[in-house]
C-alpha cells in the first residue's frame, strides 16, 4: 500500500503565488505528484517485481482532483487506488490526517507493507508516515534508500541515518518512508496506460458525457474508490480543525526587512572598490 499526496508545486513559485492579502494563491501553483511519493511508488513497484502476486494499492487523501495522481500511479504500475475525500477533512493537521489515513489503511488490511514518501514539499514535516504507522500499530523504517532483499516474510532495506547508512530487516506488517535519494520512479508504461486510462472515481463518472456503465462492470479495477468520513468510520471530532491540536496563530507573508544596502553595478572599478572595502573591514583576507 502506497500513501501519496497531490501537492502544489512549491518549488516553482512564480510572482502570482501570493495574493495581495498575503494568502497563498493555490490556483497559480500547478498540482503535482509529491516527488518523494514517486520514490515511494517505485519502491513498492520493485517489491511487486520480486514477489509473485503482489498488488500495489495507492491511497491518497485530498479533493476530488487528487484522483489524478492515482491514475498517474496506475499508469506507472499500481494496481488500483482509493481516494479519501470529504469536506469534513478540511483543516486537518498531520495528526488528524494520520488518523483518517490509518482508518482507511486498517479497512484495507491485511497488507504487508505501508510505503510513503519521506515528506511532502508543501509542508516538509515528514510526520504523516510515522504518525500513521503508530496509529495502525506497526513498526517503521524511515528514510529508506534502497530495497536490498524481499521475500514473503521479511524485507531488508538500506536507510539513511544522520551520519551514514544502516541496513535493517523487518517482518510484516511494517511501514517504510522513502527518501528522495532512492531510485526515481519508472516512467509511465504505454501498455499499462492503455489498460487503465479510463480509471475514474464515481464523482468523475458523473461528469463524463460518455456512458461508462458497461466498462466499469467489465473492469471493476478501473473504478477508483472514494471514501468519505462515514466510509472509513471516522469520528468527526478527531478530524479537521477540531481534531487538530496544532493551530495556526499567525501567517506572515514574507517581507524582507529593509536594511541599508548598497547597489553596485558590475564595472571593474565597483568590484575592485568592494574588494578593497571588504579587505579593509577584515571581512576577507
Amino acid at each position, binding site marked *: 500500500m502506497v500513501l501519496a499526496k497531490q501537492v502544489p508545486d*512549491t518549488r516553482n*513559485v512564480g510572482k502570482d503565488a*501570493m495574493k495581495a492579502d*498575503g494568502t*497563498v494563491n493555490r490556483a497559480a501553483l500547478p498540482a503535482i505528484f509529491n516527488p518523494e511519493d514517486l520514490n515511494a511508488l517505485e519502491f513498492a513497484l520493485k517489491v511487486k517485481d520480486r514477489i509473485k502476486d503482489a498488488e500495489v494499492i495507492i491511497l491518497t487523501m485530498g479533493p476530488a482532483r487528487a484522483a489524478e495522481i492515482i491514475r498517474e500511479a496506475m499508469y506507472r504500475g499500481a494496481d488500483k487506488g482509493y481516494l479519501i475525500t470529504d469536506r469534513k477533512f478540511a483543516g486537518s493537521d498531520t*495528526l488528524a490526517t494520520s488518523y483518517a489515513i490509518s482508518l482507511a489503511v486498517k479497512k484495507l488490511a491485511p497488507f504487508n507493507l505501508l510505503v510513503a514518501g519521506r515528506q511532502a*514539499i508543501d509542508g*516538509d*514535516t*515528514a*510526520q*504523516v*508516515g*510515522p*504518525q500513521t*504507522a*503508530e496509529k495502525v*500499530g*506497526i*513498526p*517503521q523504517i*524511515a528514510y529508506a534508500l534502497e530495497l536490498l532483499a524481499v521475500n514473503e516474510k521479511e524485507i*531488508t532495506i538500506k536507510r539513511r*541515518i*544522520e*551520519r*551514514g*547508512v*544502516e*541496513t*535493517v*530487516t523487518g517482518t510484516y506488517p*511494517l511501514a517504510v518512508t522513502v527518501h528522495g535519494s532512492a531510485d526515481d520512479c519508472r516512467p509511465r508504461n504505454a501498455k499499462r496506460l492503455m489498460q487503465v486510462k479510463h480509471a475514474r472515481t464515481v464523482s468523475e463518472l458523473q461528469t463524463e458525457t460518455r456512458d461508462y456503465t458497461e466498462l466499469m462492470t467489465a473492469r471493476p479495477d478501473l473504478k477508483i474508490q472514494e471514501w468519505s468520513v462515514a466510509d472509513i468510520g471516522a469520528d468527526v471530532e478527531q478530524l479537521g480543525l477540531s481534531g487538530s*491540536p*496544532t*493551530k*495556526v*496563530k*499567525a501567517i506572515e*507573508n*514574507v517581507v*524582507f526587512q*529593509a536594511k541599508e*544596502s*548598497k*547597489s*553596485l*553595478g*558590475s564595472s*571593474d572599478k*565597483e*568590484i*575592485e572598490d*568592494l*574588494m578593497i572595502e*571588504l*579587505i579593509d573591514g577584515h*571581512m*576577507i*583576507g
Partner: protein
Amino acid sequence: MNNVFIYCELTEENHIADVSQELLTKGKTLANELGVKVEALVIGHQLNGIEKEIFPYGVDIVHLADDAKLSPFTSGAHARVLTNILKQEEPQIALFGATANGRDVGPRIASALKCGLTADCTSLIIGDHEDKKAGKTYKNLLYQIRPAFGGNIIATIINPETKPQIATVREGVMKKEIFDENYQGVVKEFKVDGIFSDLDLAIKIIDREIQPPKVNIKGSQIIVAGGYGVGSKENFELLAELAHALGGEVGASRAAVDSGFAPHERQVGQTGVTVRPKLYIACGISGAVQHTAGMSDSAQIISINTDPNAPINKLADYAITGKLEEVIPMMIKYYKKNSK
C-alpha cells in the same frame, strides 16, 4: 509536571549531540521564562556519567534509560520509552532535534500522545493566545515559528489544548551556551524491563556504516552560495574558485540542489543547514525565505544577481547587479591584487 523536556541525542561516541546541547540552552531559556525546570531524556546504552555533560546547561533532572536494546537507535524502542516517560511526567514542552532520529521518533510519540508537533521550527517563543470565538485566553503557550509552503510564508503554530507542545529544531538554528559549569541536578533511572512488545523491537539492525561528514559549511566563516540562477554545474565551479581564493566553502540553495548543481550536503536553508558566517555571498539566489531562514544571520551579505529586484537584495549589504560569470572572476582578480 509542567517542566520543559529535551530529548538528548547521542553521537556515535556516546556524547550529547550538538543539536541537543543547543536545545538544552533554548529549553533553559524557555523554562526560566515560564518559571519551571528543564529535564533531559537520554536513551541509549553504556551511558555512565553522561549527566555530567548535561547538568551545566542548567538541567535539574536527567532521565536515563540505559539498556542494550536501546542502542543503536531504533524508533520502536525509543518511542516506547519516550511515550512512557512523557505520559508519566506530563511536561508542557518537549523539544527534539530535527535529525534523522528526531524526525523518526517524534511523530510516533505525538501520534501516541495525540498532541501537536511542529517540525523544523526556526524560532520558539513564549506568548499568550486569545481565542475570541471561544472566549478563552491561553497563557504562556509555545509559539512554534517556521517557514511553510515552500518558504513563502512564516507560520506561527500553537497547541492551545494539548500538552506536551512538541517541536523539532534543526542543528545550528539555536545557539548553545553553558548555563553554569557547576550546576548540579539529579539522575532518574528509567527501568525498561518488560515494557517492550515484540513490535517495538521488530526492526533489526544488520549493519551500520558511519560516514564522516565530508563538508563542513557550518564551520566556515565565508560562504559562497549559489542558487538556481547559477544555471549549471560548471558555473558552480566558478563559485568554488572564489570560495577557494577567499578560504571559504561553497553553499547552495534548495533549488540548486534539486537541479543537481550541488550536492545536498551543501544545502543552506530550512531543509539544509543554518549558517552564520562572517560573509555570505549569494550568487543567483532569489531569496525565498526557506533559504534566507538559513543564512539571514550572516554578518555581511553580498548578492550577485542579474535581477536588481531579487528579494535577496533587500537583505544584502551589497547588491551587485550583473552576470556572475563576469563578476566572480573580477572579484577573484581584485582580491588577489589587493590582499596583503
